[in-house]
């Protein structure tokens, strides 16, 4: 445990540096530094792709195996959340509705 604690701190420090410098990269130089057009086009698609790539495995994998079933609580909760987010644009409604769906499927399918 003690041997690993430096690694935890190093990871936190590394992630903090990444978080700071991605924000500061254009604000800090202050000059008229601009993104080249190619980079701008790539960055246009990266955020949505990144978030979707984090979400999908969390919904559709159960213990590392693909689980596309109405009895998979995370999948049902996630789909309900997608529908609510598209319909209401409310973060609170999305989270509450998704958690409710997760709990219901757990109660009745588990």
């Amino acid at each position, binding site marked *: 445990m003690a041997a690993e604690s430096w690694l935890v701190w190093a990871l936190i420090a590394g992630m903090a540096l990444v978080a700071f410098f991605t924000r500061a*990269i*254009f604000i800090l130089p202050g000059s008229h530094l601009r993104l080249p057009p190619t980079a701008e086009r790539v960055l246009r*698609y990266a955020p949505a*792709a*990144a978030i979707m790539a984090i*979400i*999908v495995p969390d919904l559709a994998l159960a213990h590392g195996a693909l689980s596309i079933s109405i009895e998979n609580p995370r999948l049902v909760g996630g789909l309900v959340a997608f529908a609510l987010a598209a319909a209401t644009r409310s973060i609170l409604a999305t989270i509450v509705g998704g958690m409710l769906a997760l709990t219901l499927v757990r109660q009745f399918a588990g």
Partner: protein
Amino acid sequence: MIATALVVNLRYVIYSAVLAPHFEHLPRRWRVLLSYVTVDGMFALFAGRYRPDDGNRHNHWYFLGGSLVMWCAWQLSSGIGIFAGAMIPAEWSLEFASTLALIALLIPLLFDRAVTWGAVAAGGVALIAARLPLNLGLLAAIAVGVAAGLAVARIGPRNGVGRV
């Protein structure tokens, strides 16, 4: 883990490029401070309210004020999570709320066909490549997602070729 942090923070590179012309007249310590406090919500409010050419030289106070409110809420909820999180039963799956919050953040980002198809492609690859070590599956998913988005923008009708 560092690679994951880089990837989820990539959007801030875009925010940084958008914000830079607003703040370039400010002293360096201001620019360090404003870089540090930048978050999604404040960026969206600020970008909706000010344009770089509107000549407003005091809009950094608006940005700082809103950011500090969000900063306090962030630190407070993180603290509650660290000290009281263990009291919440694991079977509530409260960590699932963070995935749900990402879903809520994702929907407004899907503003055109190309971005949406890029994201769908990324989700599919993330599923297939989930077993790769070192989060390489995530990086592969983003690479394919970006390529798919660029391809759809090229072949599709020009309804999605505007700037972000």
